[in-house]
């Protein structure tokens, strides 16, 4: 019998909170599992969609930017390979952001009926996108074999940059999730942001080509986009010595993560107890 005394009051310390999250780790796994299981229920292709989406995106990107936009003329390696890290990051980032921002509202039945540390819900969304990332990376290997391209040791840094990508999405996603509880406008804004975010992030083109234009001010803004930092970093580690490490976009990314990550958790903690009153 677990007879430790629990005290329910208006104040709770951060260590209590972290301990509680640890106590509910089982729920964390099961929610993640649920999201993955449910995603492709009653579809014919099932998990096949996780293959088709990145594959088609890569092909279309390579075709649109490479062939039509004529960006592939001065690259040393096949343009599909150049596009792949961009697509991997973009799909993961957008999917995580979308899932995070909707996470509380979609689980309102849980939030209003049972207690658990609410942070578990947004945290568990990481796995949904992660499955797709793994499949996309697998696809990348197939493309590598196809083009007989060999990435170097830096490939082992991929998980680290994927994690950074999630953390970048986590900050704004968490704030959106909180706001979405009260203002469903967020549910309208996020898909819209994702739609045009595509074009202001170097998914189908290189950061280099932005730098080489005459508009230096535009480059300065461009590197502030956290997704730019993630894609640049992933290109650096996945594509052998094709791309240099771009500190211009990496430093803003790290600052962005440090700021939004802690701020968003504070913001979330401040509001999580009133979710049930607004949902």
């Amino acid at each position, binding site marked *: 019998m677990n007879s430790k005394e629990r*005290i329910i*009051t*208006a104040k709770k310390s951060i260590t209590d909170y972290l301990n509680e999250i640890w106590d509910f780790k*089982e729920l964390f796994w099961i929610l993640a599992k649920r999201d993955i299981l449910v995603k492709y229920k009653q579809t014919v292709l099932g998990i096949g969609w996780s293959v088709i989406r990145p594959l088609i995106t890569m092909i279309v990107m390579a075709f649109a930017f490479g062939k039509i936009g004529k960006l592939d003329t001065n690259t040393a390696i096949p343009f599909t390979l150049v596009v792949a890290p961009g697509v991997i990051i973009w799909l993961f980032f957008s999917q995580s952001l979308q899932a995070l921002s909707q996470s509380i509202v979609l689980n309102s039945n849980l939030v209003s009926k*049972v207690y658990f540390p609410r942070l578990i819900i947004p945290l568990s969304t990481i796995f949904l996108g992660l499955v797709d990332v793994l499949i996309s990376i697998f696809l990348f290997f197939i493309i590598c074999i196809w083009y007989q391209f060999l990435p170097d040791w830096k490939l082992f840094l991929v998980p680290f940059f994927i994690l950074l990508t999630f953390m970048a999405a986590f900050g704004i996603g968490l704030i959106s999730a909180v706001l979405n509880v009260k*203002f469903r406008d967020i549910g309208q804004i996020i898909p819209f942001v994702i739609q045009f975010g595509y074009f202001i992030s170097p998914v189908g083109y290189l950061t280099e080509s932005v730098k080489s234009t005459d508009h230096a001010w535009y480059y300065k803004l461009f590197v502030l986009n956290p997704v730019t930092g993630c894609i640049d970093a992933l290109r650096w580690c996945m594509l052998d010595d094709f791309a240099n490490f771009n500190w211009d976009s990496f430093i803003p990314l790290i600052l962005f993560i440090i700021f939004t990550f802690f701020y968003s958790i504070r913001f979330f903690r401040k509001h999580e107890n009133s979710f049930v009153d607004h949902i």
Partner: protein
Amino acid sequence: MTVLSIENVSKRYQLNQKGNSTDDLRDTVTRWSNSIFKPSKNHNKKEDFWALKDINLEVKQGDRLGLVGANGAGKSTLLKVLSQITEPTNGIVKVKGRMASLLEVGTGFHPELTGRENIFLNGAILGMQKSEIVKHFDAIVDFAGISKFIDTPVKRYSSGMYVRLGFAIAAHLEPEILVVDEVLAVGDADFQKKSIGKMRDVSNSGRTLIFVSHNLTAVQGLCNKGAYLRNGELIKSGKIDEVVNEYVKTVSKFQLKQNWATPDEAPGNDQVRIKTISLTPNQEILTDNFDTRTPLKMVFEYWNMMDNAELNVSIFLYSMTGECIFNIGDDAKFYQQGIVRVECDIPGDFLNDGSYYISAMIVKDRLAPVFFFEDALAFDILDYREGTDWYGKWPGAVRPKMISVNSVQKELL
């Protein structure tokens, strides 16, 4: 041993005085910008609403506490505070041991997942470890009676199966304190019986139960302690019978006596005026509340202003829904000017539990209504039962004991 102590707990909600429940982003931005430019004018006055006011309550191990009170009394808010869905504004709650709350059956069921997957999902949501769920898995499936459909998505379940599965999971949770809200409102009689039985098992095994229901019969049958909430305040706590009596006394629209001193102010017309009408228990022991056993006596007096009139009285008893349960009258007789007294005995073990009201009609010459005194009396009859473990609503307008039912063993195999 005290397992749960609630100390000075209050919960405040803020109501927007403007009453705009659809708080959209634009409104907030407008209000915010207004507050910058016109800081003196307070656009958004908040009104406080205290859903719970200074609640103090102790629950001992093995107690079965029933929370009663009208809608909006704060019962659900208290359960939400106890189950940590919302935090109290003031005060603290101390909980010893694992507490599980069942505010809804099948919380978090995902329609696309199978019964099996949902058992694990729901179990984890309710705070069970995976090993516990595995241990109880067969018992859960058995209790819910869905073994054939365990690998079917729950969206294909009938609502009964869905509820049964939800309750089965919760019932196999082994918390030291179980908080249950209105789960009995769902499911058929058989299932209700099963779930009450399960809740009784919980308390018999030394665990603590906190139960909210509008079904007073179930509360009385299941609980030994009670707490009565009204408008967020704890009015009474203690033994369940006393608490339920207190509650029934304050909520029922009892009108057991009407009396007028002079004919001038009394209801009626030129021919008759009502003097008094009353309903009392027709027994030695006087009680505040009537239950199904209580025999009742109605006394009705009126002033007759007519000479040598042939009069009789017709009494109507209606159920709360307005259905006439019976209409019965006395024999017509000739009366002189003065006061006429009518008595009517309603035997015990005749009416079912529920709310009733009585109207009386004075009839002249055996056919012409002189005056119809409508809704003269109103009263509630509480439930009383023994020799049964079933606590659902007893059906029927009447529950007459004068009709006898007997069984004998006719043959031995």
